[in-house]
C-alpha cells in the first residue's frame, strides 16, 4: 500500500489536474465545504418556513423536508443529475449536480435542528420583542434566529464529517472526487484492488477522524466562550 501511495499520491490528492479537472481529495473537501456552507442558509429558510403562521407554507416545507429525508441520498443525486439540466436549460457538470444534491440533503436535515432550536425558545422572547412594536421578520432576525442557531453549531461540525463521506457517492455519477480517483488508480493497476481500496478507506478514516477530533475541540472552546456570555 505504501508504494501505491508513493506512486499515486498526487493523483489521489488532486485528480487529473492540471491535465484535467481538479479532483481527488481536494475536490472532496471543496465539495464538503461548499455543500455545508450553502446548506446553512437554505436550512434556515426551510426552518422559518416550517414555523410560519401561514399554514400552506408550513405544510409545503414539511412535505419537502420529509420527502427529502425519506429517500436515499443516491436517489436524490440521480434526481439532481437528470432533472437539473432539464430545469435550468444548460448541461451541468457532475460537480454542480452533486453539490446541489448535497445541499438539498444537508439542508433538510439541518432545518430540523434549526426548527427545534426555534421551537425550544421561550415564548417570552418573541413576546418581548413584539411588545416593543418590532415586526415579525426583525424579531426573527435579531431575537429568534441568533438564539436558535446557537444550537446548530455542534450539529454542523458532525454534519461536515458526514458530508465528506457523502461526497464519495459522486463516484456513481463520475464526479472526480477521491473515491473516483482511487477507482481510476485501480483501473490502471488492475492487480492490486485490495491495496488500493484499503488505502482509500484508510485515507477517509484519517481525514474524517482527525477532522471530527479537531472540530470537537473547537466546538468545546466556542461553548466555553459563549457560556461566559
Amino acid at each position, binding site marked *: 500500500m505504501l508504494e501505491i501511495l508513493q506512486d499515486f499520491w498526487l493523483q489521489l490528492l488532486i485528480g487529473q489536474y492540471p491535465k484535467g479537472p481538479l479532483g481527488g481529495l481536494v475536490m472532496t473537501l471543496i465539495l464538503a465545504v461548499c455543500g455545508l456552507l450553502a446548506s446553512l442558509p437554505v436550512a434556515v429558510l426551510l426552518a422559518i418556513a416550517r414555523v410560519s403562521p401561514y399554514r400552506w407554507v408550513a405544510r409545503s416545507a414539511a412535505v419537502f423536508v420529509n*420527502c427529502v429525508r*425519506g*429517500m*436515499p*441520498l*443516491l*436517489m436524490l443525486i*440521480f*434526481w439532481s443529475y*437528470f*432533472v437539473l439540466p*432539464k430545469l435550468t436549460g444548460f448541461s451541468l457538470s457532475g460537480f454542480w449536480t452533486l453539490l446541489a444534491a448535497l445541499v438539498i440533503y444537508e439542508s433538510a436535515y439541518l432545518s430540523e435542528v434549526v426548527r427545534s432550536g426555534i421551537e425550544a425558545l421561550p415564548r417570552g422572547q418573541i413576546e418581548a420583542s413584539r411588545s416593543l412594536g418590532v415586526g415579525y421578520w426583525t424579531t426573527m432576525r435579531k431575537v429568534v434566529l441568533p438564539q436558535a442557531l446557537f444550537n446548530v453549531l455542534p450539529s454542523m461540525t458532525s454534519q461536515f*464529517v458526514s458530508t465528506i*463521506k*457523502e461526497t*464519495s*457517492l459522486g*463516484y*456513481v455519477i463520475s464526479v472526480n472526487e477521491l*473515491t473516483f480517483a482511487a*477507482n481510476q488508480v*485501480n483501473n490502471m493497476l488492475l492487480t492490486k*484492488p*485490495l*491495496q*488500493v*481500496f*484499503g488505502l*482509500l*478507506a484508510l485515507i*477517509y*478514516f484519517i481525514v*474524517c*477522524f482527525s477532522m*471530527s477530533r479537531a472540530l470537537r475541540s473547537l466546538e468545546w472552546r466556542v461553548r466555553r466562550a459563549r457560556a461566559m456570555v
Partner: protein
Amino acid sequence: MSFLTNAQLLSMLEGMLTTVQLFAICWVMAFTLAVLLVVIRTIDFAPCRWFVDTYVEFHRNVPLLVQVLFWYFGMPELLPEPVRMWLYAHNAEMSLAAIALSLGSAAYIAEDIRSGLRAIPATQFEASRALGSSFLQTMRFVIVPQAIRTSIPPLVSRALLLFKNTSVAMAIGVVELTYRAREIESETYRTYATFGAATIMYLLGSFLIMFVGSRLYKRYRINTGAGHA
C-alpha cells in the same frame, strides 16, 4: 403523459423486493453483530475494548460506498481461488454488499445500544448479581432488554438509514430499486415517472418502518412505564 407500463412497474417492484431482502438480511446481521460488540466491550480486558472502539471508529469514519467497494473489489483477493470462483458464481454482489452494509451498520447500532446501556443505573447490574445471577445471565435478562427498550427511537432511525443505504449497493451491480429505476430511465427517458415511482416506494418503505417503530415504542413504553406511572 402516460405512466409506466406494467412490465416496467413490475420490474421496479422486483427491485424493491431486492431492496427489502437486503435490508432485512443486513438488519438482522448488523443487530446481532452489534449486540456481540456491546457484550465484548463490557469485558474488562483492554484489548477487547480497543478492538470494539477501533471497529466502531473505523466504520463510522469510512464512507459506506467505500466499504462496499472494498468488500467487492478488494476482499475477494484474499480468498483462495476456488472459493472466489464459487462466490462469483453465486451472487457475489448481493452477498458482499450485505456483508459491507451489515458491518457498517453494526458499528452505529452498537453505539446506540451502548448509550441505551449507559442510561441504565449501575445498581440494576449490582442487584442482579447480588441475587446470584452470573454476568451473562444478568446481561441477558436484565441489562440488555432494558437497553434495547431505551434505544428504540435511535434504532428506528438507524433502521431507516439502513433501508435507504441499500441503494449504495447498486454501485456494484446489485439489482435493487435504485438500480432498476436508473435502468428503466435510461431506456425510456421517462425521468419524472420512473424516479417518482422509485421515490414513492422508498417513502412508503420509510413510513412503514417509522410506523412499526412507533408501535414498538408504545408497546415497550407501557411495559416499563409501570415503574413511574
